[in-house]
């Protein structure tokens, strides 16, 4: 197991992503930051805090569980869904930034796009990922990337975050027959 990113590098990447989101959106107006559980939701909270601090206006973070929209449910043991928290007034006309920890096959993001559809019609949907490790199975790409990490398909990339795992780090390990997502 090898450490790819340490706490300070994760923090710097998230601050850069936050700035890029504000720049592309020309401020924080109409922004809805939505994380995919578990660790995407934590990253979304951190990005929303960064944006709130930079812009001086409160930008909340939301959580969108995609379990019930996955296309691989029958290939894994039953997954228990996580809570979803979305804006009470819906997301019609908003610019939604989806946040996930690792972008891999793209299937989680596809499920998230379907799930978003059931909550309303955003003006635009952007994608932010802390790690892009390649091996896409669908035509999906991220707008904001913390770090590109070319990897072999059988390697395992783990993102650990203080809120969930007591430490901020990204590691890679060789074995591990099944991937994170």
């Amino acid at each position, binding site marked *: 197991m090898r450490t790819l990113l340490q706490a300070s590098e994760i923090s710097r990447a998230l601050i850069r992503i936050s700035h890029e989101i504000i720049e592309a959106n020309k401020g924080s107006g109409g922004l809805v930051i939505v994380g995919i559980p578990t660790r995407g939701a934590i990253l979304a909270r951190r990005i929303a805090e960064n944006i709130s601090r930079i812009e001086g206006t409160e930008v909340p973070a939301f959580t969108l569980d995609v379990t*019930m*929209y996955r296309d691989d449910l*029958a290939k894994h*043991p*039953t*997954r228990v869904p*996580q809570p979803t928290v979305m804006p009470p007034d*819906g997301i019609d006309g908003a610019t939604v930034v989806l946040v996930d920890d690792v972008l891999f096959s793209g299937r989680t993001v596809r499920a998230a796009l379907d799930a978003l559809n*059931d909550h309303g019609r955003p003006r635009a949907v952007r994608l932010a990922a802390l790690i892009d490790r390649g091996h896409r199975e669908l035509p999906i790409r991220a707008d904001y990337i913390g770090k590109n990490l070319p990897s072999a398909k059988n390697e395992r990339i783990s993102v650990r975050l203080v809120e969930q795992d007591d430490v901020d780090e990204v590691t890679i390990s060789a074995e591990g027959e099944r991937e994170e997502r």
Partner: protein
Amino acid sequence: MRHLLDTRTLAREDALRILDTAEDMAATQQREVRKLPTLRGKTVVNLFYEDSTRTRISFEAAAKRLSADVINFSAKGSSVSKGESLKDTAQTLQAIGADGVVIRHPASGAPERLARSGWIEAGVLNAGDGTHEHPTQALLDAFTMRRRLFGEAASRGRDLDGMSVVIVGDLAHSRVARSNLWLLNTLGANVTFVAPETLQPYGARDWPVTVRHSLDEAIREDQPDVIMMLRIQSERMHAAFFPNEREYARNWGLDDARLAQLPERALVMHPGPMNRGLEISSAAADSDRSTVLEQVANGVSVRMAALYLLLSGERTEHA
């Protein structure tokens, strides 16, 4: 979990997993689009050997909101009335390609037989068997209690530790009472059965339950957080269990005077359909404390959760 057959053997963690997943399902029912794609391509068969409207449409709504295909099979006017056995029906469903079977049957143990016999690979959900169990009803009752007690936001992961639940009525014939007893006991609640001796279940004194004959005594002594009134099931009464309906209503009905005696916080529950004026007065049924309609709405969420947890994952041989 592979099947949901009873609450007696349902582990606490599995019960809480169903209740917590039901919270997520309930949240999806608040949205503009209430349908989820989760069970697309799966087939759920409602196999009903006994009349039922509520449970059947509740399961049907739950399966459809998860995008499963639903086939309704009722014994009346079907091959069963021509003498087909449960085994042959099951094998037919297997050949059709059913992924889940929701079964209601007048014989206690029929769902278990279906699940364990090897006739069929589908997940089996017991929707009421004889006087044995009706697990999804107990789960939706517990879900309703938990939501009223802790609020929607704080319900997750909680059990019903220390709650006092009084169940009144035709307990001898009631699978709802049995399923509730086992589940509530697993979740830490204290259960009291109130009925005349003729309507107490056989062997109840060996169960973890307080048996009483007087409703007034139960209200006074147990200070119930929940009072659950059960329907007098005239269709199952083939002997004289009590002198007449008026006397039953006077001694064991939740009338206006008893409603006033209940603690301020107490919930009034009834699995429906109600016999107004017999086991429950209209004032009690329509009061703020009554959860009768919430129970119906929550029933869909709980059944969605059960169908999801049973049918979505990878199919394994045991577990």
